[in-house]
């Protein structure tokens, strides 16, 4: 376990063009399906909006008046026409808005990702492609289907991971202007994404957007995500994981470093 694996890099005709090392720390984890299960449960719980709501007897309009006298009518006693027993009445113990989000230790979340990626490699469902690019000017679904049909599996679904950041981050040597300390690529990328979440624009790669649009009509079959968007649920939901070497590096950075602490 935890042994570096050398896998071939293929081109889009699935011919070998080189090789890449996948670090064992990330790609050769023991297949802990319980960890993966916990992460998936956590993910799905956090997706829940928690906005479902029905009205109780106090929230349904009307019903303030006692419908008939307590005694002497021969009918069952009733205090309100909106009681749960009435047609059109409120719901007893109905769903209320609720925060369903769970917390999961970050170490378990990261381990879950490693295990999910490792299971792809162990099952022979991981392919590294030198480039995931649509050659034509406009997004072309046909070009993408031609590529994935080479894998010879009708029912296989594909998760394509490509680097979405427009800057070639390997060339980037970020230096803190105050201290002159060189930051790691990982820190820089994490910062970039943190700022993107705040609303700052990040330079997105045109090729990535084109690829994403090309896959838009293949909803159930192909999903295109950046390495930062790699998650356990998608890894399990899609059969084959196809990555570019750039994405492999980004994922390796993301999963082999300790979680970033910003100070």
């Amino acid at each position: 376990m935890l042994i570096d694996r050398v896998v071939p890099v293929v081109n889009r005709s699935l011919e070998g063009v080189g090789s890449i090392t996948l670090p064992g720390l990330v790609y050769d984890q023991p297949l802990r399906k319980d960890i993966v299960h916990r992460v998936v449960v956590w993910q799905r719980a956090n997706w829940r909006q928690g906005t479902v709501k029905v009205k109780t007897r106090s929230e349904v309009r009307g019903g303030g008046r006692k419908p008939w006298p307590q005694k002497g009518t021969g009918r069952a006693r009733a205090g309100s026409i909106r009681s749960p027993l009435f047609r059109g009445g409120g719901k007893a113990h109905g769903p209320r808005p609720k925060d369903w989000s769970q917390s999961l230790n970050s170490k378990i979340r990261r381990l879950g990702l490693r295990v999910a990626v490792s299971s792809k490699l162990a099952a022979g469902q991981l392919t590294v492609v030198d480039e995931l690019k649509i050659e034509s000017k406009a997004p072309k679904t046909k070009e993408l289907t031609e590529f994935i049909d080479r894998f010879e599996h009708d029912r296989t679904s594909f998760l394509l991971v490509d680097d979405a950041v427009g800057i070639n981050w390997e060339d980037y040597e970020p230096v803190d202007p105050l201290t002159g300390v060189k930051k790691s690529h990982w820190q820089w990328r994490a910062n970039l994404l943190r700022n993107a979440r705040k609303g700052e624009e990040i330079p997105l790669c045109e090729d990535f957007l084109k690829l994403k649009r090309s896959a838009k009509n293949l909803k159930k079959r192909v999903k295109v995500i950046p390495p930062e968007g790699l998650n356990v649920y998608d890894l399990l939901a899609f059969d084959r994981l196809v990555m570019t070497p750039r994405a492999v590096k980004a994922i390796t950075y993301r999963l082999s470093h300790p979680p970033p602490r910003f100070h």
Partner: protein
Amino acid sequence: MLVRGLGRVCLRGRWGAEGAKVGTGGLRGWCVAATSGQTVKLSPGPRQDEEGTSSFLLTRQWGLWSSAGYSTAAAAAAAVPSFPGASEPLKLNNISDNKGARRKRKRVGRGIGSGWGKTCGRGHKGQKARSGGRPRLGFEGGQTPLRLRLPKRGFHNPHKREYQWLNLYKLSSWIRQGRIDPTKLITMKTLRDTGVVGNKIKDGVKLLGAGHAKFNHKISIEVSSCSELAREAIEKQGGQVQLVYYNKLGLKALMKPWRFEVTPFPARPPPKLRYLFEYVGRLPEPDTPITK
């Protein structure tokens, strides 16, 4: 017999056949031959056996392309191989938590068959059968409770300071290993950062004298407190110990400066504790000892 994996796995039951799966818990792998009840040491690295070379098996095991298959049968090579070495891929429908990791919720009042039917496990009538029914903690039904029956004793010392202790033998071991630089000033931050003391430093570090006889480093060190034996041993080597005072905020600012946008002003010790310290601890972390 070799099995890929980490650590040891105990093979139980009908684990005998060639290619039997060893996949309990977090371990995965395939054994070539194992008898039942045998404890197997899992060997790291790609599986090797008599039949094939390691690269042959690597190709088969990981579903990768063999070098021959690059150009000729590209599409076929990309196919998911169906061989006994490949592990079942994790999918949304075959993951589960460990057995016993989750306990089923007790649903009360759901009929006799459930076992928690009519009285819901609360018994018949009375205060404890009602909702919210339970006398407050420490209430003994009206008799004078224990906490009132017994006299008060002891006192709370507002000046109490708890130190993480550090013995000289450990310090010298760290210096010997090169984890602490003896030529530089050793502060409590150095001690914490190098891991010679743990993260439960409450009010500071006290230096103790175990290992004083063999201590042979010239160091200058700033700690909160120091035993006489330790001080003697250090000063015998020409080093110096300075007792510095940090309050809790100051200690935090010393240990974790990144938490502070503005470094707090170093606090002086309270008058009643002044006799314990020699200097006010400096902030941020100093790199030279205080000169008299």
